[in-house]
């Protein structure tokens, strides 16, 4: 099992979510995040005083998946989140040791 995490542009969330659902993903966790990559932040000006805003708003989307699906789901994420402009984000996966569904106590793949 793998945890796939995607950091994406906030306005791409709906598109990414729809793409994942069409693929058959049944659950996900979405949280607001801030950060920067190579694009860094941007500059804002208030009454002539410049402020550098380093941390740009992003959305973090997390999906637990079967090992066999991981590569496809990463592809779906990358394809649906891409605008081609700087700041599109990143997608990565890490191995997961154990998953438990809290309500029933089911474990492993049954809990997905």
């Amino acid at each position: 099992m793998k945890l796939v995490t995607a950091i994406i542009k906030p306005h791409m969330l709906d598109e990414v979510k729809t793409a994942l659902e069409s693929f058959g993903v049944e659950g996900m966790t979405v949280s607001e995040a801030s950060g920067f990559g190579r694009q860094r932040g941007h500059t804002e000006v208030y009454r002539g005083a410049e402020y550098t805003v380093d941390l740009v708003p992003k959305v973090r989307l997390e999906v637990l998946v079967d090992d066999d699906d991981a590569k496809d789901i990463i592809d779906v994420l990358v394809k649906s989140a891409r605008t081609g402009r700087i700041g599109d984000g990143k997608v990565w996966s890490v191995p997961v040791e154990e998953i438990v569904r809290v309500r029933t106590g089911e474990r492993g793949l049954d809990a997905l």
Partner: protein
Amino acid sequence: MTPLEIDSGNTAWILTSSALVLLMTPGLALFYGGMVRAKSVLNMMMMSFGALALISVLWVLYGYSLAFGDDVGFGLLGNPTQYLGLEGLMEDTDASLPPMAFVAFQAVFAIITVALISGAIADRAKFSTWLIFAGIWATLVYFPIAHWVFDFSLDAHVGGWIANDLAAIDFAGGTAVHINAGIAGLALAIILGKRLGWRHDPMRPHNLTLVMLGAGLLWFGWFGFNAGSAVAASNSASVVWVNTMVATGAACLGWLLTERIRDGHATSLGAASGIVAGLVAITPSCSSVSPIGAIIVGAVAGVICALAVGLKYKLGYDDSLDVVGVHLFGGLWGTLAVGFLATAAAPAGVDGLFYGGGVDQLWRQAVGAFAVLFYSGIMTFIIGFLLHKTIGFRVSEEEERAGVDESEHAETGYDLGTFGGGRSLSYAGSAAGQAEADTKNGQEVSA
């Protein structure tokens, strides 16, 4: 003598204007509150609301007497005991405007002038010292200056020196309100010193929608401030109303254009600031210029103030919300503008330099403006310095870092986080206490 009847039209307009001007102080609280960081929004708003509470009491007790009592000498101060507690002003008189209507109208001017100063000391002032300062400052600075500028001699009544002897034109308070509060803000900003991390930590406004709403309320209330200062529902009030509208629009455009050229963007904070700059500048001049003159007063104010807010970075004082850049510079320009742009066709009936009146009115304007500037600047510095050295005007470093809302008021402005702003533990505690209470009341508590 046949008693005059109360003029209900005038009285209604003055009472309405008083309520409009009162709303400016909560409007200012929003305008200022949105500009500070989220951790000080409540303290910022409380400085305005504190002034609203305190000055309304002082005004009734002795403030009105100091400002509008019979002059005690040289046009400097009203007799402080003449209307003590306003006891003598409740009876029906033969005046066309009830004295209490005038008391009400002038009260709200005193309140907002004090509140304006607070923008210079955002994020770092002790609330208790602010209130003590507000009371002393109103007593020693505002009430006397209101007497100088707003108390006109009539029949046996002798008023203040700027209004009567100097005959400077300050229709609604370019000197008494804006230059006064602006220079006082500068004095306090210097005494309290810079905020921790000034020019280094990000201090951008936390909520510009509040700022826009505040600017809107200020503009709305300002029609009472200026058009109400005609003290009648008259032609003069109507001219003033239109001048107030158009100068403000022009100032907003002037500020936005300056920003667009200098920084590349027209900002919402610039629009809000331009609105206030225009309102400030047209305050003294609204009765003496034509509508075209008002457009010039406003447009120039927008440009001057947009440039003046940058001075603090060059000179190194942390006037946090630009009381100096907007109110001092806007007030000075508006007051002097009367000397240049006044036209005899306007209600005040005086020609300025550009309308063939020579420099006669201009020097009167300059003397009035600088008299208020020096008196207020020196007095504020003394009052602020003494308070700072005795009871302290500034919170501790630790408290400032944590935020003045928490240290001064034990509150948080916003609780928007999923986990109760990181206070889940204390909430869990109180929720448990509540559950216990519910059980005691015999109610079922679901798990």
